[in-house]
């Protein structure tokens, strides 16, 4: 199974995410992650979806989503041409004697310590999902108490903007 990152501009209305997640479920596509936010234009929100599937699934899901009235623009975020970022918060058990090691890890990964208690620390790390995966593998032995990831979000490089694309509903 391949992973594909799809980005879309949506009408900023209630129920839009339900339409999208419902479409994935009923057409048997798998969402790896979904990350939604408001944008500079209050009429639109933006969503980044990671799909796990094959080329056929990618093509179908993109076209089916494009048909939704509330999906305004949609595209595949090309690996070589986009910036992908995800944010991780991870709470680790830290006895006093392991704290030094943690600081070293933090420096290597350019993570931040955003909370510290006598027994725990919360680390924050932003980066490509693979970097977050790597970091998690390294901190695993210390004991992860809980963690949260935002899911990947993406923008294409250079002048290209999602807003410049043509919506399917303008073509018919």
């Amino acid at each position: 199974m391949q992973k594909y990152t799809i980005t879309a501009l949506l009408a900023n209305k209630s129920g839009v995410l339900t339409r999208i997640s419902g479409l994935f479920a009923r057409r048997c596509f798998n969402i790896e992650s979904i990350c939604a936010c408001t944008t500079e234009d209050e009429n639109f929100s933006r969503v980044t979806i990671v799909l796990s599937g094959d080329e056929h699934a990618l093509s179908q899901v993109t076209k089916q989503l494009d048909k939704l009235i509330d999906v305004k623009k949609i595209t595949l975020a090309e690996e070589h041409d986009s910036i992908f970022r995800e944010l991780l918060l991870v709470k680790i058990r830290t006895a006093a004697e392991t704290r030094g090691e943690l600081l070293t890890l933090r420096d290597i990964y350019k993570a931040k310590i955003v909370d510290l208690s006598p027994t725990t620390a919360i680390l924050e790390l932003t980066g490509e999902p693979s970097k977050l995966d790597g970091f998690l593998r390294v901190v695993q032995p210390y004991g992860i108490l809980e963690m949260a990831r935002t899911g990947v979000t993406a923008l294409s490089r250079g002048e290209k903007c999602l807003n410049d694309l043509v919506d399917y509903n303008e073509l018919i």
Partner: protein
Amino acid sequence: MKLTGADILIRCLKEQGVDTVFGYPGGCVLDIYDALYRDGTLRHILTAHEQGAAHAADGYARSTGKTGVCFATSGPGATNLVTGIATAYMDSVPLVAITGNVTVPSLGRDSFQEVDIAGITMPVTKHNYIVKDVKKLAATVREAFYIAGSGRKGPVLIDIPKNIQTEVCDYEELPPAVYVPKPVAADLRPAADALARAARPLIIAGGGCIGANATEGLKALAEKWQAPVCSTLMGLGGFPASDPRFLGMIGMHGTEAADAAFREADTVLVCGMRFSDRVAGDRVKFREGKTIVQFDIDAAEIDKNVDADVHVMGDLQEIFRALLPLLPQMEHEAWLREISALQKAGDADIDKNLPAYKILTAMQKFTDADTPVATDVGQHQMWTAQYCKFEKPRTFLSSGGLGTMGFGMGAAIGACTGTGRKTVLVTGDGSFHMNLNELCTAVSHRLPLVILLMDNNTLGMVRQWQGLFYGKRYSQTTLDRKTDYIKLAEAFGAKGYTIAGEKDILPVLQKAFAEAGPVLVDCKIGIDDKVLPMIPPGKSYDSVITRL
């Protein structure tokens, strides 16, 4: 002008040219029904059940090409529409369903007759709305009609909470937005080249040809390409059955000629059809050894079930208009001779002793090319598709995608009110029992409706599968019912007749078609009558069963 939401709704429907609404009143649509009453210019057909209203709006839309409209109250009224909405969705029928709901402050509190109908219908509508601000109501209704009737058409639901119906805001009349299909963006040369290379061409016309009103273009293309044409169930009527190039229906119960022509064809052009499993059978084998050219308005239908070698996304009228000048006049004489022989062989194989064949053939002596013929779902539906010669689009009304038993009564009522013509419903004893309550609607409105009920005391199509694939274990398909259809028709205020044998066919049909109001004809047929040919589910075209 300041108006209440309910008045704005009625005004907006009239802006859109709506003349008829099918529906059922209730607590949360009282204000809408009051506005309807006070306006007094819209025809309202009160059905026995909201499902009937949804199917009627659907039948109205299929037969007239206009967008059908139905009303239902909140809760159970709204959920009763769901099967009708899903039926319209699967067959791309333009429909606007309007439901009431509890007041906005009562939403989400499990109030009396509250249901999240927008949530429930999300997967079976092209789009839906819940209007929480009266100022947005007019724009929403206008947008809903535009969405329902543009591109690939489909149902749209608008849920209007009760307080929105009574709140007041400014209303200004606007002319309806007219959908004008865009010119085809893609280069049509590859498609024209693929068609020009064909030695044994075949066109499969789907419901999209009718939906796009592109049947003239289809005819012109068949002429220029010199190609035989077959049709999916949904496409029937899109190409005249009397044309020598017409092969009839293709698919699971398609004609022998269509089946044979498909096997022999080297280039298959599919127009406005979605390779449903009932047409494609084995999705992989379907395209083997053929060039498939696909035209469709819905980009998501391209490569969904069967990969096309060449595809064009766009409105079919626009595609035909742009394509025809690029295609030279073709000659396929040898192929057309072969086709003609296939047609003769196929016709010879039809079991002309089958009661349904005799009845449906005789029926066509009393109908004309404009008579709407609705069906329910099952054997009678396939027999109608096989044996009735549909000459014009929008005359064959059947639930193709969803296969909704119970569709026919509502659909026939909708078609009859929409066209003002004598309408035929061919149904079965299984399907008829599902929504026979709508007989009262047909009687109240004195609709000229002839119901031919194929009565075999069984769920015939399911029995046929049990016979072929389940070792003749007829689980729950024999209908041990004692329904007296004549008394039933009379109890509702309709007429009832019986065709008990061959000699009854003509005299009874004569009497039935002479009636001014609804009439039910109980047609006794055999419990083991079969629909043939049949391609077993999921199988390819060479596994066709032509006789048993």
